[in-house]
């Protein structure tokens, strides 16, 4: 077996288990905060000096739980991406969303934000989930490293007959002091997977599962 695949599977298995545990931890925190909120509501008529502070703190807790939930969803998908049933094909719609969620921090550190628009339907592609994640993440990394801070990295999808595309639109304006790397150097695995830069958007094309089945 390919040693990289073995290492990826090990990382994935251990990470997945930890993510499941984190889900339980978040669930406990949510219920505990929720119970405090319930008690405050029930005693709404009781004059309590710290009520506004407690309510605000509970809101913070709830919003951070929602934030943690999204990150856990994405990390869990990353962890499961070396699974056998995702080695050769995956739903590009799901994994584009995962790229967006996983990229948020690196994009924010560069002073920008991620904006993702999902497709209306599943987009099965004949490329493994881990490979899609690697290509997508590297593409976003390229986008924020070579373009001016602030603004949005837009991630879209485009359905096609033989290829579906993950489209990265960087923030406007190139960084003047950064040498522009060839976006085609974001190598994509497998046959018939390719990149295309039209001057504004970076397209990552993946063969559709349907097209691959007909070959």
């Amino acid at each position, binding site marked *: 077996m390919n040693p990289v695949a073995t290492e990826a599977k090990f990382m994935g298995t251990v990470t997945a288990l930890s993510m499941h545990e984190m*889900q339980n931890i978040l669930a406990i925190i949510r219920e505990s905060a929720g119970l405090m909120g319930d*008690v405050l509501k029930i005693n709404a008529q009781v004059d309590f000096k710290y009520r506004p502070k407690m309510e605000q703190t509970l809101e913070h807790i709830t919003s951070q739980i929602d934030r943690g939930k999204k990150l856990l969803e994405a990390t869990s998908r990353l962890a499961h991406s070396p699974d056998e049933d995702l080695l050769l094909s995956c739903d590009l719609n799901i994994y584009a969303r995962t790229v967006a969620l996983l990229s948020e921090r690196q994009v924010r550190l560069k002073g920008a934000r991620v904006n993702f628009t999902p497709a209306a339907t599943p987009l099965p592609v004949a490329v493994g989930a881990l490979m899609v994640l690697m290509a997508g993440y590297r593409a976003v990394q390229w986008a924020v490293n070579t373009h001016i801070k602030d603004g949005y990295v837009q991630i879209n999808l485009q359905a096609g007959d033989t290829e579906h595309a993950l489209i990265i639109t960087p923030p406007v304006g190139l960084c003047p002091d950064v040498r522009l790397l060839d976006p085609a150097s974001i190598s994509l695995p497998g046959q018939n997977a390719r990149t295309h830069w039209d001057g504004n958007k970076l397209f990552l094309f993946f063969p559709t599962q349907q097209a691959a089945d007909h070959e």
Partner: protein
Amino acid sequence: MNKLRVLLIDDEEAFVTTLQERLELRDIEARVALDGQQGLHTLTEYSPHVVVLDLRMPGLSGIEVLKQIRHQWPQLPVIMLSGHGSKQDAQTCLDLGAVQYHKKPLDIEELVHSLMHATSKGW
């Protein structure tokens, strides 16, 4: 009108006892079992209207408990909970007869809605 009675089966004690308290505050009677075996034993002496069952537990798994409940108490609706959240798991549970599947962390109001829905359907 009788209170809605729920049996919660989950090995995470902090989670399930807090959930129990929150349901009680919503006028829902909730009993707790901390593993599958205890859950099945509780069902021999307590008649809930609905069971809320965690998917992954040490010992008897959620799937095994679900199968046994469907076999011994076929009219008793079961709502599954999971921190794992895969579509496949969800479909497996629904195929085995669970009436609903919720991911953790929960939204209490969604759970209450599912409890009401499960019992009003007369499953």
